[in-house]
């Protein structure tokens, strides 16, 4: 009786999976197969995909947004959108990682832009890195802080271009497609971002 009081979508969600779904070898299945199962409503298959791709997606959103909490929200939103649109994913058109990178990039850029002017922006948090001794650690920390500050000052699309090409190793064509620009325009974004970072490394004032 209690189950009948729930909306139809919730009742469907609570329906036990068919026997074939129980026999699925999700850890060994390729991304495209897991997405096909997810499109049929297989939540464990989608969870396996989340486990595989969450580190990359979170790295992208965190690189673009800086602060940890909003970046995690953006990563979560990426997967919720991927779940809702699972049936739209076409493996013939590209890898799942590139598809997720595109969604994550768009969400992070939109979120960054929607922050109201004047609203205090949470500072980019430092990432732990090993330091061999205190003196070297201090130099490294200073340099890291300088570059992190310069990076935080970059426009969102330049950050996204660096995140996709440098951190994720996406080929230029894939990164350009994720940003919905031409490969030549991507080169322009990368060039401007790197020029600013190089200037900060040389000690030039912003």
């Amino acid at each position, binding site marked *: 009786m209690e189950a009948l009081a729930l909306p139809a979508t919730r009742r469907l969600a609570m329906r036990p999976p068919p026997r074939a779904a129980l026999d699925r070898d999700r850890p060994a299945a390729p991304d495209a197969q897991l997405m096909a199962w997810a499109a049929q409503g297989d939540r464990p298959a989608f969870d396996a995909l*989340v486990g595989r791709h969450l580190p990359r997606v979170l790295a992208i959103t965190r690189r673009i947004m800086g602060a940890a909490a909003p970046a995690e929200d953006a990563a979560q939103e990426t997967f919720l959108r991927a779940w809702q649109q699972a049936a739209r994913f076409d493996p013939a058109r590209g890898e799942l990682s590139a598809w997720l990178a595109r969604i994550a990039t768009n969400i992070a850029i939109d979120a960054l832009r929607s922050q109201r002017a004047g609203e205090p922006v949470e500072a980019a948090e430092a990432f732990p890195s090993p330091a061999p001794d205190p003196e070297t650690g201090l130099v*490294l920390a200073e340099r*890291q802080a300088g570059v992190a500050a310069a990076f935080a000052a970059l426009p969102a699309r330049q950050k996204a271009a660096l995140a996709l090409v440098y951190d994720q190793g996406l080929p230029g064509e894939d990164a350009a497609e994720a940003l919905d620009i031409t490969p030549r325009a991507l080169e322009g974004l990368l060039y401007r971002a790197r020029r600013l970072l*190089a200037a900060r490394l040389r000690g030039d004032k912003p």
Partner: protein
Amino acid sequence: MTPARLAEIIAAFGAETARWPAAERAAALALAARSPEAAALLAEAAAVDAALGLTRPRPEAERLAALRRRIAGEIARRPLPAARRLGLLERVAWLEPFAPAGVGALAVLVAGFAWLFWNDMDQELVMLGPQALSLMGSLL
């Protein structure tokens, strides 16, 4: 590959040659190997690459695990994925095995219409011939 283009590639993609555009990589590498100017550009680009590597996000395992649980909980509350809307071609895809028969039937239909059309034209010419002659005779 020109020195100017090589400088653009290094300025955009850095010193790690695996990131260079695949279509231009071989030519760019060949030019970089014999260009002293390229060596200086590569050294400066490597410093930027190293700085970027220092600040690369490396999410902690605990945060990742917590976020994965959060996403799973949210997915459990969400409705099932929306079904994909089929395009016109996909909706009639089940007719594909009948395509040869369909093309054959269409060809027969076209041939039939063509035969009827030309046959009518010939008959009209045959019927019009005597009428035209009698008209010409009456005029004379």
